[in-house]
């Protein structure tokens, strides 16, 4: 699958590549494949690459002397058939406790939507969410795949403090706060899992293309897992996926 891409210089050291502007798994896979191809061929030139829903930004090590030339190189890489490298991708089973203690906005969401609380939870765990990219905060996953019935406006007044691990819904997105921060999403639960741990060799276990499955756990299970996470003995369940 090949798309009509737009290439733009982005300051003196970066190039922005844009796909048709929509949230679409096929586009996301194409971005990841193109990024992998560029990184294989241009490794020594590229300092960093940033994936968005429908964009890829390449930051170069040096100022771009001739942007047109660089864009021509990128176009020729895109025009050459690239075969998706057999990169491993995983489905991660993330435990979430949806009990009242953590699901701060479940009641309000239920009142507004007329969905009973247990239905909101069932719908949230029923979907498989795709990691489109990681941004905003270290370890913050941009997930696609929220059930339309769960789409909920952000809170009109953001909370000054949303705790680390809080699971929320903001518009058509769902996600996990990797660190305690301010935030306007509706909080429905909490996970004891760390999405950004600087002590680990891979600080964030998930990569674009992976999927996330939320698994509902009780408060006592949550506390047990939390202890294991602290003791570094908890192993997050994962399955390889094609």
């Amino acid at each position: 699958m090949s798309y009509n891409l737009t290439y733009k210089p982005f300051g003196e050291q970066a190039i922005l590549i844009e796909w048709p502007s929509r949230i679409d798994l096929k586009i996301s896979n194409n971005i990841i494949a193109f990024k992998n191809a560029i990184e294989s061929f241009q490794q020594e030139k590229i300092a960093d690459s940033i994936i968005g829903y429908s964009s890829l930004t390449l930051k170069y090590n040096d100022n771009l002397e001739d942007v047109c030339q660089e864009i021509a190189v990128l176009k020729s890489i895109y025009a050459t058939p690239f075969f998706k490298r057999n990169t491993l991708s995983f489905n991660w089973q993330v435990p979430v406790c949806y009990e009242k203690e953590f699901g701060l906005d479940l009641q309000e969401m239920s009142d507004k939507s007329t969905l009973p609380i247990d239905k909101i939870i069932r719908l949230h765990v029923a979907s498989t969410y795709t990691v489109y990219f990681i941004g905003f905060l270290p370890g913050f996953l941009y997930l696609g795949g929220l059930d339309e019935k769960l789409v909920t406006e952000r809170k009109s007044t953001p909370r000054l403090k949303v705790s680390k691990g809080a699971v929320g819904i903001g518009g058509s997105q769902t996600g996990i706060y990797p660190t305690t921060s301010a935030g306007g999403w509706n909080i429905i639960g909490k996970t004891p899992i760390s999405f950004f741990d600087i002590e680990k060799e891979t600080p964030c276990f998930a990569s674009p293309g992976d999927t996330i499955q939320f698994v509902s756990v009780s408060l006592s299970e949550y506390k047990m897992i939390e202890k294991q996470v602290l003791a570094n003995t908890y192993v997050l369940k994962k399955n390889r996926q094609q």
Partner: protein
Amino acid sequence: MISVLTAGFYTTIQDLGRVGFAHIGVPVSGVMDGYSAQLANQLLSNSKQDAVLEITFGTCRFLFEEPQLICITGADFSPRIDDVSVALNMPLYVEKGTVLSFGKQQYGVRTYVAVKDGFTSEKVLESRSFYKGVTKEMLLKKGDQLQVANLTKIVSKTFASVKVNKAHFSSKKLCCYEGPEYHLLSESQKNTIQKTLFTISKDHSRMGYRLEESIKNNLSSMLTSAVLPGTVQLTPSGELIVLMRDCQVTGGYPRVLQLTNAAIDMLAQKTTGDQFRFELISL
């Protein structure tokens, strides 16, 4: 070793930042005013990568526990070693037991102190730049003991000094390129952005500078995409935010302008109430 006697308002250790970790959402960070920081390292014949102190609004005091070769650049907050005023932009040899302090602001916002061969605090994700959640420390505090490279030998007795580049601190012109969404602006919006004398609001930090003057905005928000230090975002309410070195890696507001690296360095020396214009240049 150098002891922190007074930590000041916002003092951090910074190098050129974290490159290659945007894919896990980690900001670049690094020195706000790259020009001044690099000058300090150059004058000590350090490597470009060596970590320096970044001091915002002076006021801190440091005790040298060992003799050191240092260089102060950037904002002039009347530095003194013990009771003697010292110059910026030249290497200084300081004795064991002396105290470096800062006084009245002459110009600029951020002062850099480099030591020979750099500060050797812990590297996290290949950088020493302080960032909340990445490095253990976010800010220096009173009583901190800063590790520095051992001063082995002083290479030369005659050191270079350079004249202060006044324009770096006083220029009201920040050069920038069109941002990815610039073309979506109307002619009148483009005109306003280029003609307005913008004022820095109270809301500014290492993450970004919010500007006072707003622009009529009818652009819809966009799908989340990359932002960079120097990206100028236009918010739904028409405010402009200039992202700085600690900015997040992605954002959803239209990116109307992109500052040059040199312009980011210059903006890092400005504060609340300072004014400037955007000067659009082409690549």
